[in-house]
C-alpha cells in the first residue's frame, strides 16, 4: 500500500495536470505556436522521436564524457590539494573562480580559441560540473576521525597507505554527494553550451534542435525536446543515486536506512 502510494499518487497528480492543460487549450482555442496541448507534444514525440533521439545521444555523450572528466580531474585536484595545504591555499580560489563564473560569459572565448565544437561543449560542461566534486571530495578527505589518524600514525602508515585505507574511504560518501550535483550540472552545462555555440544540423545536440524549433514556432517539437532533456536529467540523477546507494549500503548511514 505504501509502496503503491509512492508511485501512484505522483502519477495521478501528473495525469490530472495534463488533463486540465489539455481541456484548457481546447476550450480556449489557444493556438499551437503559443502553447501546444499535451496531445500535440505527444504526437510530436512519437513522430520526431527517432530523429530527436539521435540529437539527444549527442547531448548525452557530451554530458557523460564531461562528467567523467570532471570526476577524474576533480578527484585528482582534491587529493592534491588535501595532501599539500600550501597547494590548497594557492589554487582553491581558482576553483571557486571557475564555479562562480557563469559559463555563458566564457563560451564566446572558448568558441574562438577551440575549433572542434565537441571539445568546446566538453570544456564548458566540465567547467559547470567540476567544482562540487572538488569541494566535496576535499571536505571528505579532511573529515577522517582524529583518532583513526593517530592509529595510522602509530603503525607508521605511509602517506599512500593513509590515503588509500583511511582518507579515500572517508571521502567516498562526500564525493558521491558531489557527483550527484555534478551530474545535473554537466547536463545543464552541455545544454547551455549548445545554445550559446549555436550548433545546427544532424550532428548537433538536442538543445540546438529545441532552439531551432522554437525559432520556427514549432512549439510541439520544441517541447518534445524539452521533455526528452528533462527525462535525461531525471534518469541521470536516479542512476547516480543508485550508484551511490550500491557503494555505501554496507556501512554508511545515508544508505542504511532503518533496518527491521
Amino acid at each position: 500500500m505504501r509502496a503503491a502510494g509512492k508511485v501512484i499518487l505522483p502519477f495521478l497528480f501528473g495525469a490530472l495536470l495534463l488533463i486540465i492543460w489539455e481541456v484548457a487549450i481546447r476550450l480556449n482555442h489557444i493556438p499551437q505556436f503559443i502553447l501546444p496541448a499535451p496531445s500535440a507534444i505527444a504526437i510530436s514525440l512519437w513522430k520526431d522521436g527517432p530523429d530527436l533521439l539521435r540529437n539527444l545521444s549527442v547531448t548525452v555523450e557530451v554530458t557523460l564524457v564531461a562528467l567523467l572528466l570532471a570526476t577524474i580531474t576533480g578527484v585528482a585536484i582534491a587529493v592534491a590539494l588535501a595532501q599539500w595545504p600550501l597547494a590548497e591555499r594557492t589554487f582553491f580560489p581558482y576553483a571557486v573562480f571557475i564555479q562562480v563564473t557563469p559559463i555563458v560569459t566564457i563560451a564566446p572565448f572558448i568558441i574562438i580559441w577551440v575549433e572542434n565544437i565537441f571539445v568546446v561543449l566538453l570544456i564548458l560542461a566540465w567547467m559547470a560540473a567540476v567544482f562540487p566534486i572538488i569541494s566535496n571530495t576535499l571536505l571528505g578527505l579532511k573529515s577522517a576521525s582524529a583518532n583513526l589518524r593517530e592509529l595510522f600514525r602509530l603503525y607508521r602508515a605511509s602517506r599512500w597507505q593513509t590515503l588509500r585505507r583511511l582518507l579515500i574511504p572517508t571521502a567516498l560518501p562526500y564525493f558521491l554527494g558531489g557527483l550527484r550535483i555534478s551530474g545535473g550540472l554537466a547536463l545543464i552545462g552541455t545544454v547551455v553550451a549548445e545554445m550559446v555555440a549555436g550548433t545546427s544540423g544532424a550532428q548537433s545536440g538536442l538543445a540546438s534542435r529545441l532552439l531551432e524549433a522554437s525559432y520556427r514556432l514549432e512549439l510541439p517539437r520544441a517541447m518534445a525536446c524539452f521533455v526528452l532533456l528533462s527525462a535525461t536529467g531525471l534518469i541521470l540523477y536516479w542512476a547516480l543515486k543508485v550508484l551511490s546507494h550500491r557503494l555505501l549500503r554496507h556501512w554508511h548511514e545515508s544508505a542504511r536506512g532503518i533496518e527491521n
Partner: protein
Amino acid sequence: MSETAVALRSVAKNFPNGIEALRATDLSIAEGSFVSLVGPSGCGKSTLLRLIAGLLAPTTGTIERHDDRMGFVFQDPTLMPWATALENVALPLRLNGGTDDSSARHALQRLGLDGFAGAYPHQLSGGMQMRVSIARATVTSPRLLLMDEPFAALDEFTRFRLNDDLRALWQKHGWTVVFVTHSVQEAVFLSQRVIVMSPRPGGIVADMRIDLPQERRNDFRLSHTFIDQCACVSTSLHAATAAQDSAA
C-alpha cells in the same frame, strides 16, 4: 623480570595555547606490569599516554621504550565503519605489508568474537565494538598495550566482564599494560600499581602498589581487602583534588 618497559625522564608537555598539561614527570614502568592512571578530568592522563605512545612529542625530557611493538585502545572503539570486524582487526597487519589474516582471526577468537568476523561495526553492540578494538590493538602481539579509558562508555555488567577478560589475557600473554580510567575500583581491580594524577598543571601525586592476590574473581570486588585498597586510592585522589582546589 623487572626490565623497564617505559622510562620517562623529566618529561613535560605544554600545548601551544599555553596549557601546561604535564609538569616535569619521572616515571618508569616495569616490563610485564599492569599500571593504571587515575585522576580527575583534564589532569593529563591522555596526554601522558599519548606521550608514551610517541603520538605527542614532549616539550622537554626524554621517553624511552624498551620495545616499539605497541597497541593503543582509544576511549571510543575508533573502528573504520566501512570495514568488517576482521578487516578492522587486520589493519595493523596490512599496514605492515602482511596479507595473512590468520592472526587477525585468532585475535577475534581470543576476544570471543568468532562468529562476527564479517560484521560491520554498526552491526555490533558497544561492548563488542570495544572488543574488536582490543583485538586490533593486540593482533601484532605488542609488548606494550596502552588503553585510554576503554570501558568508560559501557554498562557495569559489560565492563566487569571485559575487566575479567583483560586480566586473563594480560596474565596469559605478559603484556605491559598502561590503563587510564576514571574509576578507582576498576584501577584497583585490574592493576599491580595505581598512579594518581592531579590537574593544573597535570602531574603524578601518588604512586601506589596494590597488594592483592593475583587471582581476582568477580566476588573479589566485595571483599574487605579490595574495598580497603580502593579507599586508600580514593583518599589520595581526594587529597590531590582538595589541595588543587584550595590552591586555586
